[in-house]
């Protein structure tokens, strides 16, 4: 939802980044305001996941230029955990398996580190249990997943749901969902999309990275951006996604090359 004069949550200016000295991001520009839903689409290897990981602070990526301001502060100066605690959330394209760490413990430690950051009292195991059970409903996930190790042996779709469960618990200010729709069956896609919609409001914002217009039938974006070769080369409304679905990327890439 686009609202006049709403607060800027994220502002990316001419961001460049490398991985192992190879430039991947080559001048990203993006502004996201409270209440908005943005979608980034683009060919494989264009740098979408790299962009999301740079925002989250992955140590393998080196920022070589530009600036990112998040809620008015210099995002790039923050440690990854502090970005998360101030409400930045990345749902991974490939969520990691962490054998030996129970999902429930993980969620509680994560939730409490955010509470602590906000100078709120940490929740004990008992109260947290109540909270989790309430949030399980958002993604219609079985409580049995809580006692298993984080993502260990989860199916592709279950991992994605688990990411959204984490999002539901952490209630981020800016949620970046990297291909959360891939690997989901049709019912799961509706459930996950429903969860995301339920969590989005006028104070927060969502950035979806996706290859498929299908997701955008359920989560209606305010802006659709096309990313290619490390930059956003075109921005439009939700209709752009339909056009891309019908025509592919070539016409955008060609128009850009001219």
């Amino acid at each position, binding site marked *: 939802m686009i609202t006049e004069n709403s607060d800027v949550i994220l502002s990316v200016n001419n961001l460049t980044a490398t991985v192992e000295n190879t430039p991947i991001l080559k001048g990203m520009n993006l502004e996201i305001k409270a209440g908005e839903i943005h979608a980034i689409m683009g060919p494989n290897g264009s740098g979408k996941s790299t962009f999301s990981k740079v925002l*989250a602070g992955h140590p393998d990526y080196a920022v070589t230029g530009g600036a990112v301001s998040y809620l008015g502060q210099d995002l790039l100066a923050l*440690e990854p955990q502090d970005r*998360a605690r101030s409400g930045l959330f*990345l749902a991974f394209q490939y969520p990691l398996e962490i054998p030996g760490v129970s999902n429930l413990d993980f969620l509680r430690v994560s939730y409490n580190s955010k509470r602590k950051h906000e100078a709120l009292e940490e929740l004990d195991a008992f109260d947290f249990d109540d909270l989790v059970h309430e949030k399980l409903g958002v993604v219609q996930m079985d409580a049995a997943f809580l006692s298993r*190790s984080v993502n260990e042996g989860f199916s592709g779709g279950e991992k994605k749901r688990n990411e959204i469960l984490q999002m539901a618990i952490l209630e981020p200010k800016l949620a970046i969902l990297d291909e959360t729709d891939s690997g989901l069956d049709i019912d799961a896609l509706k459930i996950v999309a429903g969860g995301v919609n339920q969590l989005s409001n006028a104070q927060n914002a969502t950035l979806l990275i996706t290859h498929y217009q299908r997701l955008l039938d359920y989560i209606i974006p305010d802006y659709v951006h096309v990313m290619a070769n490390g930059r956003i080369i075109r921005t439009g409304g939700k209709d752009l996604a339909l056009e891309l679905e019908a025509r592919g990327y070539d016409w955008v890439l060609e128009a850009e090359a001219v």
Partner: protein
Amino acid sequence: MISSPQMRLTEGGAYLTQLLEMAGATASGDSALQVLRSAAAGRVQSQQFPTTRDEEWRFTDLADLLKLELITQPATVADISPYQLAEAPYRLTFVNGRYLPELSQAENLPDGLNIGNLAGLPDLQQYLAQQGAEELFTALNTAGLNDAAVVHVRKYAVVPSPIHLLFISTADQFTQPRALIVAEANSSVTLIEEHLSLSDTPYFTNSVTEVFLADSAEVNHSRIQRDADSAFHIGKTAVSQMRGSRYTCNAVSLGAKLSRHHLEIYQTGEQTETTLNGLTVLRGEQVGDTHSTIALTHPHGTTRQLHKTIIDDRAHGVFNGKVYVPQAAQLTNAGQLNRNLLLSPKARIDTKPQLEIVADNVKCTHGATVGQLETDEVFYLQSRGIDADSARKLLVNAFAYEVISQIPVDSLQQTLSRSVTTR
């Protein structure tokens, strides 16, 4: 002063003689026990003190042990309550090798269970020193043997709660704990053998535990070594398994400047099951060595071994796992996995699986991995608001948990989990 190998040998020989004296190895008396002791003393005298030139001690240098000035002295401990395990009501406590009934709980035992010291259960002497007896440190222990923690489970008895064998050492001591477990046919028992100290000054513990499983007996044995960081610990666990028996060892080593645990499994009948879970956690300049020998001499045996080592700072881990499957041991299923987690660039592991498989119709797998904490895993946790240090601790604990979770006493699991990541 740099000592030449020759000097080291002379030094070592003198040291052994000194240890034998301290162990109270005398030739007097003709009791059955004395016969064992004398024979063992002879075996010690016929061997040389190991150096890194011995294949079996290649990575584990005992040179610093020679510098220790040791004593043997009876002592007591005012309060063992911090070490008591609520879940393990039966307990035998030994301090500096001496049985302390007042710190033990060997009364009101369930039917079919007898526990106590050797003096109280002399009938079981016949089982002593039957396995792995040749080896130098086992012989040294036997040469000084005058008491032992004894657990005797009669036929068909199923002991409902764990038995805690608590061996405590005080400063400067040369202590030789000894335990003897006899599980008769179809019996079942759970043991927690624990070695610890109340002191920070160096001492030397040389322990031997013998476990006998008769037909279809089941023994679940957790062996916890949390000696002082300055201590030397050499330990032997020798197990013999008759037909259809099931033995599990959960060995956790956290303490000692230098520790060596040698597990020996002898199969004396068909269809045995052996599960060995091991965890060694090393930091500072600790050296932690696990040797295991599994000798499968009968058909249809199953062994599963998982040994994990976590190594930080400049510590050094050693794993050597031997599995023998001779022609007779057809249809054996043996799996061995050694996984190592290096937490610092100076940490070191030497791992060597040694499989000798002659039988043709068997299934044997083995593997060793050496890894570090994955940047991506740490980042994943950080991206959920967990700081890097806590994330690393969480991951290290998770690595350890696979073994710690096997210990059937919750309070001990928690104590151990805490000490894996706290200095």
